């Protein structure tokens, strides 16, 4: 019986359960030491001769050098795009255009692990998200718009849709590849050519995408990729050969672009910041609503323009919601973006981290109560603990300004009218969330919210068939869905108007 006794003597379960590291292998990605520009179907050295380093934000280690495009480089890229537009791309049959888009979509699917790892390396986002969200959606966007390419006449009956020409596209660093897809896929489907500028801090997936274009045998010059900082973007906006600018990024830069383009006749769509209200009514399914709150603000470290950064909770359920939320925060796993169990990764850049810290400090100063779960952060790299502010007044900066980080501000309301009033009381109008078991309330509240995207009993869900875009200072124009084609088309409806 000694053996038996020993078995019974086993000490009870240890107090915790440490998951062993589960890193995704990064050797699937082969990085060059230095990247040029993708112009006219070739990788070329920048005329500017300048390069800058791009980092792995989770380790603060350089990954590669990329080119800083100057005016001359932008000119070259735009000329290549113009050439491609006039000498072939706008004339080939729409079904042929679709074929290229389908090819790109399939290649992206085949190489999705490689792209997911690179996206996490260069951007800091958890591999779980780049693998399960960014990459599937990226491929889905190309598949979706491939389907429209030869059906434009049916999409816009009697309006004679025609491509615009050369589209200059400037994308942000929060979803580098997905934003590329949102921009490039509809532009090509509509028959345009493209000059794309990826964000300064996350250029690598766009440069790898150039290899996908090579594989897909896309004619040279149809898509050109130029890297650089804000100066490159400004050159692209100013360039006279560009017919349309599509920008996703901060409201501040968006306003500057709009001023620059005023009177030029260039078309413009802007997808800018947000300060979305996520409204929880007292009859909501609470545990799932708490998941929605977490997904709304901590998804992608809160680097999401449509993040549910203002939580509006009905006062009667304030305590249980906050208690559940704090509990849930304690289970979030912050750390190595390449670990398959990581929920919250690294902040994208030092600059962004400083901005988050500055706003969080202002929240504490103004009198909000801060909660941060106990959390071991890596020593190197840019990190910020998931944060909740309670006791927030509508006038605090943390309730007004876009933080673009894992920071939630909690406000309360008593009645549906008050919820709508508070939700709309912001210069932004990109998105909102409504949580209630009552269908009629979802409809009535959604009608009164001034936001481009409204989620009911879910949050941060995207689909290529669904248009996305803002009201007020969150921008104009829609991406995704049928609506997403319109900004890339000119219409000749004179006949139908009887002119």
């Amino acid at each position: 019986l000694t053996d038996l006794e020993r078995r019974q003597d086993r000490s009870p379960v240890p107090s915790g359960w440490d998951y062993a590291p589960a890193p995704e292998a990064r050797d699937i990605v082969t990085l060059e030491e230095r990247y040029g520009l993708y112009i006219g179907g070739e990788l070329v050295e920048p005329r500017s001769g300048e390069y800058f380093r791009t980092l792995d934000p989770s380790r603060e280690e350089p990954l590669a050098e990329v080119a800083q495009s100057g005016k001359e480089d932008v000119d070259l890229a735009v000329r290549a795009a113009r050439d491609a537009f006039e000498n072939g791309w706008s004339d080939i049959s729409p079904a042929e255009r679709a074929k290229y888009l389908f090819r790109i979509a399939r290649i992206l699917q085949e190489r999705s692990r490689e792209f997911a790892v690179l996206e996490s390396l260069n951007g800091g986002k958890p591999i779980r998200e780049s693998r399960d969200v960014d990459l599937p959606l990226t491929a889905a966007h190309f598949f979706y718009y491939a389907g429209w390419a030869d059906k434009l006449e049916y999409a816009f009956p009697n309006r004679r849709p025609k491509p615009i020409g050369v589209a200059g596209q400037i994308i942000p660093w929060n979803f580098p590849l997905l934003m590329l897809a949102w921009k490039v896929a509809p532009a090509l489907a509509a028959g345009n050519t493209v000059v794309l500028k990826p964000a300064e801090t996350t250029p690598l997936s766009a440069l790898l995408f150039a290899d996908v274009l090579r594989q897909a045998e896309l004619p040279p010059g149809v898509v050109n990729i130029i890297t650089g900082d804000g100066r490159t973007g400004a050159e692209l906006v100013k360039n006279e050969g560009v017919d349309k600018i599509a920008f996703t990024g901060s409201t501040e830069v968006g306003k500057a672009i709009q001023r620059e383009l005023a009177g030029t006749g260039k078309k413009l769509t802007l997808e800018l910041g947000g300060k979305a209200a996520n409204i929880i009514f007292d009859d909501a399914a609470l545990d799932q609503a708490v998941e929605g709150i977490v997904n709304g603000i901590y998804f992608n470290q809160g680097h999401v323009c449509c993040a549910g950064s203002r939580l509006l909770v009905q006062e009667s359920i304030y305590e249980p919601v906050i208690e559940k939320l704090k509990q849930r925060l304690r289970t979030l796993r912050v750390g190595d973006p390449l670990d398959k169990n990581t929920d919250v990764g690294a902040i994208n850049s030092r600059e962004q981290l400083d901005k988050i810290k500055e706003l969080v400090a202002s929240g504490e100063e103004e009198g909000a109560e801060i909660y941060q779960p106990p959390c071991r952060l890596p020593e190197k790299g840019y990190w910020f603990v998931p944060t909740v502010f309670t006791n927030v007044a509508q006038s605090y900066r943390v309730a007004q300004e876009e933080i673009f980080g894992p920071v939630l501000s909690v406000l309360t309301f008593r009645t549906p009218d008050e919820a709508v009033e508070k939700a709309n009381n912001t210069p932004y109008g990109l998105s909102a969330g409504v949580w209630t078991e009552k269908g009629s309330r979802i409809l009535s509240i959604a009608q009164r919210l001034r936001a481009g995207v409204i989620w009911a009993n879910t949050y941060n869900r995207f689909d290529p068939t669904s248009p996305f875009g803002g009201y007020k200072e969150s921008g104009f124009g829609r991406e995704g869905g049928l609506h997403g084609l319109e900004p890339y088309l000119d219409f000749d409806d004179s006949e139908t108007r009887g002119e």
Partner: protein
Amino acid sequence: MAKAPALPTGFELPLEPRIPRIGSVDQVAVEERAATLARRSIKREAKLFALDLAVRIMDLTTLEGQDTPGKIAALASKAIRPDPSDPGIPSVAALCVYPNLVPAALEKVKGSSVKVASVATAFPSGQSPTHIKVAEVRDVVEMGADEVDMVIDRGAFLSGRYAKVYDEIVQVKEASGKAHLKVILEVGELGTYDNVRRASLLAMAAGADFIKTSTGKLPAAATLPVTLVMLEAIRDVYQETGRKVGMKPAGGIRQAKQAVQYLVQLYETLGAEWLTPDLYRIGASTLLNDVLMQIRKEKTGSYQSPDYFTID
């Protein structure tokens, strides 16, 4: 959860002991959350920890018309010493049998840590008069069963007679005496997550020590989302009253990988405190060998033939 709002009318629940807001469950979101948790990647020492725990929390079960004392004897020695070639493997938590086999089971597990659980209350349908169910429970407790697994009256529940369900659990609890009471909701017959949540709260309010998903007699048995719904109800009761109620998913858990997923879900919902056979069990008849096989694989680095593991 200090201020639980009043209960909706038409829902007969006693106010003492207090139970949390009944609320509701969003099907899409709860299934998504369960799926996300199931994708955790558990490796090496963390996996070994989970597999070892899976053995210690297992209710090794046989509930067949053809069960005999001989079968029970074989299962009992497996329960005590699951892998005779590896003394590091712990005993399972309990042996779960029909009432008639309780004496045989008790006899065989004597001197070990393995408990004997008996199903009762007209298992699996529960479609018998209450006094017969209560009498059955008295009998198995008298025979010496450590734990009683009862079924709720789904007929009463689905026709809205919640008080009948409640009263019956109260009576069974009383009849169980010192034996631990596990209340089987038979989630496969409840139809919605909302019903699973209500039945969970009802059972806990009536005095259940454990709530359990299924009898194992239906094709629709334990699933990750349904177990998550029950864990969240347990968490709410704990928040509200400080009482810790145990959880037992049963039916359909046949692979070690699934067991690890259930434990991850438990750990990330209720925390490390619940990682004990006192508060969590997995009811299974064929899971054990797969777990043993995985443990040996983790320890030796290679898979071995199933013939090296006894079929009992």
